[in-house]
């Protein structure tokens, strides 16, 4: 009997040791992952951007990529239950926006390499020196898929009668209201449109990539009012009823199975032989319920392209040389995973502090926040959680942002520095290594994240370990997503949280809800609408200033200076301790040519130029 108990204990001990060994830094693993990483570095190929040409009075966009063969199809996938609508002005989710984006082009697009605005439906654009007037020249002679011309009337109609009028989903409208006023739009002649913003507002240029609607199709729907518009061009609309400007138009939608697009014969882009693009006949999106099924479908060759999760990359890498696909490293993702401390020092309606006053002192102490930052082993997390497919992160702007402040250096875990900083603020450790503050309170707090997100849960476990090396006691509590959001935006009763927010690599102004001191998602020091800017800290005030100025400035260089400043402050004050960004890896079949992977645009940003060649050859 005793022997049996002993054996069980031995097994438990063995498992515990194994687990510990897996979590703690694992040197051999590091080297193997590292070598794999280096051969899998992001490769940037120079993308020949399309140019404007005029042939017989028609202003075409001309692809500068090698001429390819016509025909064939590209089968991609979308996770979830598929699009909810095909109306670009009603879409509230990513899938719907992607589908609508394929069919409807905007005036401008983004150069996938430089991130600067590039012409699409517009031939050219100019911004007046005062930064308020945008003059857009349209292409002459280009047509909708039904043969009707695309003119200034369509543009004015889209902006005035759909977007400014608040039809459908209003987030575009919400983001361009400046001091309660909307920009104005005016037709100068059939092919010229002018936008005027009430104040200089640099982010407006990005808004011009909003799809343009065909007036002759949307006008009757608009007249029937908002309720009708909400169900206009839904998933039950016949594919033949779509009149589009994009490279592809809808051919078939089968609920929960697939969306099929076919080439738009009236598309305005041509190749250097003056043949109309796109090359592909069909673009198919399979609607796949979960990631595992997507992987199986790719392996069974039902899919041509797949985005890979960290854990799967190693296996795909090993089979890549003798397979028909190639892996592309697109560089760091836009996601910014971070650890945040609740710096709220205010009371609720009942006069009770949101955060325990003892803990408040720690979280409001810059030394404490920096000590936490130095104690976190980002490299180890990248290796063990993201399987080496990630980059440590130190800035609020994502690593692929064109506004990233490159002067802010990364550093490694440094426990000595952490201890030094804590000592400076009067923290001390007892003989058992437990950390106390200068008033003799044991440093103990809760760390939250949303349960079910395995990546964040794993980060939580490692953060807990790292901080316990400093003698802090961390109670790691994964809670249900909705309860966590409630804590963050309504009840404010949390100590420390691991969260991720999405951002744009092109436009930092989208983060104003997070960074402005009265923002709706200013979670590290959230104020209620009634509190306004109450108790604003000096550096919060500075961030407010740089954010407001950044939106007002018009030149990229000037804007960058303001946004560099705000990143410096965040880097120094650590309201958010950034952890890492995952790296995006995509596998694509070799038969597709004209592939120019880019961090900002992904791999199919030039889908109209992609064609199917023979299987050999590298590009």
């Amino acid at each position: 009997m005793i022997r049996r108990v002993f054996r069980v204990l031995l097994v438990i001990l063995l498992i515990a040791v194994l687990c510990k060994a897996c979590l703690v830094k694992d040197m051999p693993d590091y080297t193997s992952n590292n070598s794999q990483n280096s051969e899998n570095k992001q490769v940037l190929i120079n993308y020949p951007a399309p140019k404007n040409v005029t042939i017989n009075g028609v202003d075409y966009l001309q692809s500068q990529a090698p001429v390819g063969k016509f025909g064939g199809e590209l089968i991609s996938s979308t996770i979830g239950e598929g699009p909810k609508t095909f109306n670009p002005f009603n879409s509230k989710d990513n899938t719907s926006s992607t589908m609508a984006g394929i069919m409807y082009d905007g005036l401008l697009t983004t150069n996938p390499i430089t991130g600067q605005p590039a012409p699409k439906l517009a031939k050219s654009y100019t911004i007046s020196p005062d930064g308020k007037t945008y003059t857009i020249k349209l292409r002459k002679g280009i047509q909708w898929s039904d043969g009707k011309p695309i003119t200034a009337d369509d543009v004015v109609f889209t902006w005035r009668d759909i977007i400014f009028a608040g039809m459908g989903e209003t987030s575009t409208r919400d983001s361009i209201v400046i001091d309660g006023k909307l920009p104005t739009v005016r037709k100068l002649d059939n092919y010229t449109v002018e936008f005027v913003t009430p104040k200089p507002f640099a982010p407006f240029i990005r808004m011009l990539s909003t799809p343009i609607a065909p007036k002759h199709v949307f006008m009757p729907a608009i007249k029937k009012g908002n309720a009708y518009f909400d169900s206009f061009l839904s998933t039950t609309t016949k594919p033949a009823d779509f009149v589009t400007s994009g490279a592809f138009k809808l051919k078939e939608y089968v609920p929960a199975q697939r969306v099929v697009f076919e080439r738009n014969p009236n598309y305005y882009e041509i190749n250097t032989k003056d043949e109309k693009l796109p090359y592909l006949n069909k673009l198919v999106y399979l609607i796949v319920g979960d990631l595992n099924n997507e992987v199986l479908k790719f392996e069974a060759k039902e899919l041509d392209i797949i985005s890979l999760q960290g854990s799967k990359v190693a296996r795909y890498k090993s089979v890549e040389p003798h397979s028909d696909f190639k892996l592309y490293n697109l560089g760091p993702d836009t996601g910014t995973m971070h650890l945040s401390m609740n710096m709220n020092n205010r009371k609720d309606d009942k006069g009770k502090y949101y955060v325990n006053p003892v803990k408040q002192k720690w979280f409001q102490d810059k030394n404490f926040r920096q000590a936490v930052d130095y104690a976190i082993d980002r490299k180890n997390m990248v290796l063990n959680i993201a399987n080496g497919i990630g980059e440590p992160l130190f800035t609020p702007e994502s690593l692929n942002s064109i506004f990233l402040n490159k002067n802010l250096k990364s550093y490694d875990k440094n426990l000595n520095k952490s201890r030094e900083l804590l000592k400076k603020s009067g923290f001390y450790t007892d003989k058992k290594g437990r950390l106390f503050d200068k008033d003799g309170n044991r440093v103990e707090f809760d760390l939250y994240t949303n349960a079910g997100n395995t990546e964040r849960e794993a980060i939580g476990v490692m953060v807990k370990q790292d901080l316990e090396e400093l003698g802090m006691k961390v109670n790691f509590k994964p809670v249900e997503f909705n309860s966590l959001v409630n804590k963050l935006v309504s009840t404010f009763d949390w100590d420390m949280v691991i969260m991720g927010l999405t951002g744009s690599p092109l436009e930092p102004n989208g983060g104003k809800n997070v960074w402005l001191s009265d923002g709706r998602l200013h979670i590290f020091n959230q104020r209620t609408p009634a509190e306004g800017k109450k108790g604003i800290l000096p550096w919060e005030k500075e961030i407010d200033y740089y954010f407001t100025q950044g939106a007002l400035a018009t030149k990229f260089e000037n804007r960058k200076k303001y946004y560099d400043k705000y990143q410096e402050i965040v880097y120094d004050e650590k309201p958010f301790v950034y952890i890492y960004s995952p790296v995006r890896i995509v596998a694509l079949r070799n038969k597709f040519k004209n592939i120019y992977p880019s961090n900002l645009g992904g791999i199919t940003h030039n889908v109209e130029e992609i064609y199917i060649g023979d299987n050999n050859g590298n590009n």
Partner: protein
Amino acid sequence: METIKYILKRILQTIPLLIMVSLISFFIIRLSPVDPLAELKLNPSISPETVQKERQRLGLDKPIIVQYGKWAFSFIRGDLGVTSTGEKVSQKLKERIPNTLLLTSIVIFLTWLVGVPLGIIAAVRWKSKTDRILTVLTSIGMAIPSFFFAILLLMFAVKTGWFPIGGLTSPNFADMTFGGKVLDIAYHLVLPVFVLFTISLAGLQRQMRGNMLDVLDSDYVKFARAKGLSENVVIYKHALRNAVNPMITLLGFEFAGLLSGAALTEYVFQYPGLGRLILEAVLKSDINLVMASLMMGAVMLILGNLIADILLIITDPRIRVKS
């Protein structure tokens, strides 16, 4: 006449039952901590006004009892409402129901066609080699979880390339001839049908075997044999008619499972049926869609039982006498 009266009575009884079901489901969904707006609230590019507008549109700013009243009122008028993304619930269900029915009715047809005879054979040849082999096979069928079996088969499909990885039709389905379409659907149905068939066959065969063994052991069968009737007449005329009664009740439950019984398998095979739709709806707390599916489940169950009872009246004279 008696039968019609009985049916009417049963239908009237279902009304309070449905009200109870709807009340309980509605309140449980609404009282769960799932906030349909949580995703929006955490998106930096969404303004507070938009969040507020969404709350009003979904009716979340009203007390639960008012929300329930609104739902119940439109439900009675036959309007199932719209999903949280603004699509018609009836439309969404209409898209999926035929697919699910196709799958489940094929499975039920096949299992009854094979399961009942196998049960009879096993009972008649009790403790023979055939019976033992069938017992082993059905035990495996009952023991293996459907989702696990489905995943195994999917991996088999990936390795061999003999079968498609889920779905119901191929991407070029629209361009096929009619015969090609039928073959394509049949090809996609092989694996999901096989999974569901194996699992429900096991239960059905065991049930039939058990019933038959009971009956074969009874006095009147012994008497029939003693009378010198041929074995075929004893089994198929006297024993089978009595053994089949419990199976009819079972058929009623099978009817209830027509729409909801295959959800797990549907999910693994990415089958475009109701299972995936409802799962997503529950995760997002899409109340109208979840309520519609729950009510549908309840109605199907009640209807299934009713049909089984009516069939019993027809097949079993004893019940007719009692009522």
